[in-house]
């Protein structure tokens, strides 16, 4: 089972989590191939963290089950411990231990033999550029350094499957780019990665992703396929008084969203039978302003399937 780069790393059927009266995750189905980077894209409270916590065995699903690396959850959590790595949303290593001490502690908890642990620790410190912070207390480091330390700790025991819960929420764009380079390096080495995010640019880097909203999976597939298959037209309007126009278009039931981008208004129109050609339909509503069809972005996909206006679920192979 180990070292197998084909097949599925995670399969889930009807994974559901209920907290009291709220459904945090509602009947989630997943099929995540090995050796890929899979993204959970969704706003805060969409069930990304809860889903990850169920797949790591931290939360017991109310119903449904999952197979992670061949182990059935709930039930097989303990057998997975040495095979998965988990980087929590909030920094969860020890603030008053140094970089080296934190890594040594993690190595001992995972039972890495002493000589090997030292070598691995030094390797990680160099790969994740923490040599200057080796003796520094983790609590006094920057967001980017903490994130690199957390990733080093989560990958110390060379897990086959890595869970990252909003790993870049506390770092600047520069560090985010670097971080993703490291994820691709890990992926190249055969690690399957499940990462949650609310950044579009990050989601776009994933091989495949699922868009979550209010605990429901609204769409999944590769970013390109999701954009191609989007159930809405995207038209940009240029002209003046865009704020007023935005307010007016907001009242149209078939307009999913109208968002100002600089001097233009980006309008998403639901692909429905009432509209045969969206250009004249929109022209009638925007006066003399100029219109232009544009390519859908992942953000358009996200907007079209989350929030009050979502147009239903999509599944793209």
């Amino acid at each position, binding site marked *: 089972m180990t070292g197998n780069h084909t097949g599925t790393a995670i399969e889930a059927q009807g994974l559901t*989590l209920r*907290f009291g009266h709220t459904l945090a995750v509602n009947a989630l189905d997943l099929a995540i191939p090995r050796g890929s980077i899979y993204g959970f894209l969704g706003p805060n409270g969409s069930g990304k963290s809860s889903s990850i*916590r169920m797949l*790591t*065995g*931290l*939360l*017991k699903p109310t119903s449904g089950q999952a197979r992670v690396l061949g182990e059935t959850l709930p039930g097989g*959590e*303990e057998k997975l*411990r*040495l095979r*998965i790595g*988990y980087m*929590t949303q*909030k*920094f*969860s*290593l*020890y*603030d*008053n*231990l140094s970089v080296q*001490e934190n890594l040594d*502690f*993690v190595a*001992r*908890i*995972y*039972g890495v033999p002493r000589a090997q642990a030292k070598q691995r620790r030094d390797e990680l410190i160099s790969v994740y550029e923490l040599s200057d912070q080796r003796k520094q207390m983790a609590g006094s480091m920057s967001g980017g350094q903490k994130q690199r330390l957390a990733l080093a*700790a989560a990958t110390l025991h060379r897990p086959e499957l890595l869970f990252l819960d909003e790993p870049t929420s506390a770092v600047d764009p520069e560090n985010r780019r670097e971080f993703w380079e490291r994820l691709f390096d890990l992926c190249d080495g055969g690690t399957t990665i499940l990462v949650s995010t609310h950044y579009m640019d990050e989601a776009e880097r994933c091989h495949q992703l699922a868009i979550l909203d209010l605990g429901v999976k609204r769409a999944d597939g590769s970013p390109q396929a999701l954009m191609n298959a989007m159930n809405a037209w995207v038209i940009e309007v240029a002209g003046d008084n865009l704020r007023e126009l935005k307010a007016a278009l907001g009242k149209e039931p078939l307009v999913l969203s109208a968002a100002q981008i600089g001097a233009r208004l980006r309008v998403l129109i639901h692909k429905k039978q009432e509209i045969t050609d969206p250009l004249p339909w929109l022209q009638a509503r925007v006066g003399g302003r100029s219109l232009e069809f544009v390519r859908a972005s992942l953000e358009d996909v996200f907007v079209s399937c989350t929030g009050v206006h979502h147009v239903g679920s999509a599944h793209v192979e």
Partner: protein
Amino acid sequence: MWGLPMWNRIWAIVTKELRQLSRDRMSFGLIVMIPLIQLMLFGYAINTDARQLPAGVVDMEQSSYSRALILATEASQVVQFTSQYSSMVEAEAAITRGEVKAVLYLPSDLDGRLLRRRAAGENPELSEPLGQWLVDGSDTVVASSIRGLRNMPLQEVVDQAFVPSSPTLEVVQYFNPEQRTVVNIVPGLLGIILTMTMVLFTSAAIVREREQGNIEFLITTPVQPFELMLGKIVPYVLVGFVQIAIILGAGNLVFDVPVRGRLDYLAMAAMLFILASLTLGLVISTIAKSQLQAMQMTVFVLLPSILLSGFLFPFEAMPRPAQVIAEMLPATHFMRMARAIILRDADIFSLQYDALALLAITAVGLLIASSRFSKRLN
């Protein structure tokens, strides 16, 4: 799960905990300073044998006898006369105001009473009291100290003609012949201070990991709840023994409190008590959601440990329900064992009831704690 990897994980947690503790200067300082300061404070301050109580006097006779009686009373050191009042009404008002704790009233026929008393000799039916003590009886310790002055010998006051009345029964005081409160207080303080630090440290140590989010990472590792708990407890067992050494050492040096019993017996009793207190802390840690809550629950255990354990008031004098509650506190059992071993050189085997009680508390605590702590967040 059992075997070398398990012990390695436990040891990893123990060393991590010790390292963190040594970095937390405040906590590290408190481990040493709490027992030292409290020992000094309670050692000097707590005294059930009241002395130099402020008192007043109403002397209606103003004779040489009355003045001699007042001086002799003061010489007993139980009271110190701070005020003179001219009437009973004034004296009662002074007690009400809290100015004095007691007033000695000497009537205007004091000399006559003295003469009649001498004539009556030892015949108790004919003798009448010379004067009267008015006491603020709200504090029973004060009241009983003054009551001790009731049978004050009079030979210093009048002349040697009086035969000092011989007591009906003689009392021989074992183990603390000088009746110093501190002798009883120091061994008791072991129980109080350890209850405070052990319960608080363990409960806070686990709650802190949860508050800071470390638990979420730890429970995705191969660490088992039992290993985590044991790893968290062991460092504080060491802390507990350090504190015991400080209290007994300083108690012996400063207050001359002897350690009569065998140290290995004391160590055994201490070990049982420390384990019971630590599991109590563990139980709290599985209930409390924040360090503040853990602190409040610790105080909830600490207060009865101070008041009901026999630390300040004799256990035997408490009503039955209070005794039942006290029996559930580790401090009560350790208090008995510590005093027995330290002061009376008792054999550990004669204290098996308390030893078993501590073991039972530990077992029940561990059962509750490990059933409540699971490797899940929901």
